[in-house]
């Protein structure tokens, strides 16, 4: 599988993503600069974390207008798998590829630690190798990770089984929420189920040395 890792001015998890993706079996990964206009030849796209455009105006608000975003929308519309991690999730929401928005953490602080999340559905190309209710230990690092959507949008996400990950306790129970996200949401997918946005960093949990390898589940699921 050939992965594209988008790079915006201010992306800073691009190298971690490339490192992990190019280490997957039968996989290669390349950077794609935000001023490029084509994603042809790629099988999957990762929009990495960081602070695109310095988070000016709103997180992801300016990246949304980068030239590559036209190609990303076409890629997604054609059913290509897209993962937006952290700032990548914010960019996908700003660009309308995912519903809702990410706002300032309820506690106002930047939160940087490991956090447990529960796999709410395996009916996605990103979690099909997980088990329902599986608890993953993933790092989070964000100041604007509080997921917000209005009640109708939240009800729809639930009804369509589109909440992929929820924050949880180490035992997989509800009640631990690091940022005030509506309904403890840590990751969602679009209606077609091929665009996935999440605040935790699976790419930072793919090596024993880093304390968790639970992030591999996401990338290995993509390999099919």
């Amino acid at each position, binding site marked *: 599988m050939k992965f594209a890792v988008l790079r915006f001015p201010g992306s800073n998890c691009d190298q971690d993503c490339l490192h992990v993706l190019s280490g997957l079996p039968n996989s290669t990964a390349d950077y794609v600069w935000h001023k490029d206009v084509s994603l042809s030849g790629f099988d999957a796209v990762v929009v990495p974390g960081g602070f695109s455009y310095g988070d000016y*105006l709103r997180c992801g608000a300016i990246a949304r207008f980068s030239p590559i975003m036209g190609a990303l929308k076409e890629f997604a519309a054609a059913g290509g798998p897209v993962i937006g991690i952290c700032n990548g999730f914010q960019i996908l929401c700003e660009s309308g590829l995912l*519903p809702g928005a990410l*706002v*300032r953490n309820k506690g*106002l602080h930047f939160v940087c630690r490991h956090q447990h999340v529960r796999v709410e559905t395996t009916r996605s190309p990103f979690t099909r190798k997980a088990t329902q209710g599986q608890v993953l230990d993933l790092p989070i690092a964000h100041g604007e990770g509080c997921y*917000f959507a209005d009640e109708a949008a939240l009800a729809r996400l639930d009804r369509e089984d589109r909440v992929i990950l929820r924050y949880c306790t180490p035992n997989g129970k509800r009640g631990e929420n690091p940022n005030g996200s509506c309904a403890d949401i840590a990751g969602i997918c679009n209606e077609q189920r091929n665009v996935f946005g999440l605040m935790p960093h699976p790419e930072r949990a793919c090596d024993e040395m880093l304390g968790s390898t639970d992030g591999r589940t996401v990338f290995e699921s993509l390999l099919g």
Partner: protein
Amino acid sequence: MKVHVTVLPKPSVLDPQGSATAEAIRHLGIAGVGRVRIGKMIELELPDATPEEEIHRISRDLLSNPVIEDYSIARA
């Protein structure tokens, strides 16, 4: 002309900065402060003939996110 666009979080969106600031105002010893909301004001320099609809387009599509924010426009 100069145009001031004010962007504020929607009433339904949690505004922890506003809540923390309301608390700080109470610490100043000033009672009676209600809800405080924090947004931003953006000053634009535009040609005098700029149509109203274009200012709305800038405000709606870029300066604010309609999911979480409302905006208002004032000619300075």
